């Protein structure tokens, strides 16, 4: 069933009007190798990461797809969440999307103070420095599907002089 392998960071457009299963794999995941599409045609996309180019590519594929399509996203949480946010923006609802996140791997922390997103390998509940304002953030399990990340807020604000 699987279509010819894709070279990394490319996603050849599928046929216009596609209503099968779009399997999107990020980084090195092989979680979708044996994904059961229930007999529906399958279109594979593989990206090294959810870069702006990859996201534009996904948008274009979704723009050519039609209601009836299903999207499966697999890989590191940061990439899967970014792609899921874009898919939702393109009109996909929860029933049309399946997320297969790696158990470990980078996640996005949204700074509650300056709104910069920082990607980190640290686990939930630990600290990370915001790439925008430099504040040391405590990284909570409060998740936004639109942002594709978790809320972080100043870990030491109460102690600060």
């Amino acid at each position: 069933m699987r279509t010819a392998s894709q070279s990394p960071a490319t996603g050849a457009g599928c046929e216009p009007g596609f209503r099968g299963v779009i399997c999107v794999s990020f980084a090195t995941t092989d979680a979708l190798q044996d994904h059961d599409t229930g007999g529906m045609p399958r279109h594979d996309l593989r990206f090294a990461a959810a870069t702006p180019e990859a996201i534009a590519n996904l948008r274009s594929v979704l723009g050519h797809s039609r209601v009836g399509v299903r999207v499966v996203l697999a890989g590191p949480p940061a990439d899967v969440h970014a792609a899921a946010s874009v898919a939702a923006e393109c009109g996909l609802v929860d029933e049309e999307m399946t997320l297969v996140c790696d158990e470990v791997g980078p996640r996005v922390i949204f700074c509650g103070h300056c709104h910069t997103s920082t990607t980190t390998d640290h686990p939930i509940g630990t600290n990370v420095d915001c790439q925008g304002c430099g504040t040391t953030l405590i990284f909570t399990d409060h998740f936004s599907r639109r942002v594709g990340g978790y809320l972080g807020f100043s870990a030491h604000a109460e102690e600060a002089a």
Partner: protein
Amino acid sequence: MTGTALQNKAKPLLDGTLQLEVTSVSAQTDSITSITFGGALGELLPSYVPGSHLVVQYGTGANAYSLTGSGSAPTEYSISVLRIENGAGGSLAMHALCVGDLVQVSHPRSAFAPAATASHHLLIAAGIGITPVLSHARYAAEWGASASLIYVHRPGTGAHVAEARQLLGPGLTECLDRSSFQEVLTRQLTTQQLGTHLYVCGPNAFMDSVLKQARDLGWPKSLLHSEAFSGAALDDGEPFEVRLARSKVTLNVPAGVSLLGTLENAGLTVPNMCRKGICGECAVPVLRGEPLHRDLYLTDQEKDDNTTMMCCVSRSLGQELELDL
């Protein structure tokens, strides 16, 4: 003219009802008549969500009818009613209304709302099912939202055809027979951009068929919306027993008699309005047993919880139900 959307100026007679005057009556077709209600002073009536219905009282009964306007700051409420010769009498009572008659109506109630996030609204109507989707089409036109309509009607019997053509232009596909409809439907169900929502209104068998085909073609449930239009009768159902825990009595609910009717016959007062499972007034708490939910009011989750049921239309899956009454 001062708008007061929160508190309506039309004089409420009972809690939640308005007394309005028939301001115009016009024949759409041989069997469909449009009736317009307004306040005595032509004042602004409460706005409503597109696809809303109005419960209109007649004699001892009440029927729900879809409003055909967009719902934006209306001074009139318009419905279109198909005459059903051997129905419960509501449609005949509506057809007998004359300009100047006073009627009691509910506030508009929303149970078939457009999805704000839709990238496109695919409207599908058969016969008198045009009424709520016409409301949707007007709203889409007002806000510049993308919409198209497949309208199935027999030649010469379609209501609101001219308005539909004007509102939707090339977005309207009229089907005058079943086979051409099937062809159009299959094509449209397989060519919609992502984020399209489908809305269907018409006879039950028609809606069931459209919804089943959509699901078979991979449409997720949350993109599908349907409105059971008035006149669709539910079957008589199986008889069952209902135990009233607080009153400590057990009643038999025969086939063809509603639980609400049974409770009323036993002397209980249960608030109710539409008696069609739409308005939500007659909710009763369930202590034991599994209701056969047939209403359009409760959410799927509430139906699964089995702690509340609408006693006007819902019955029992098992032989016995226990209520907290």
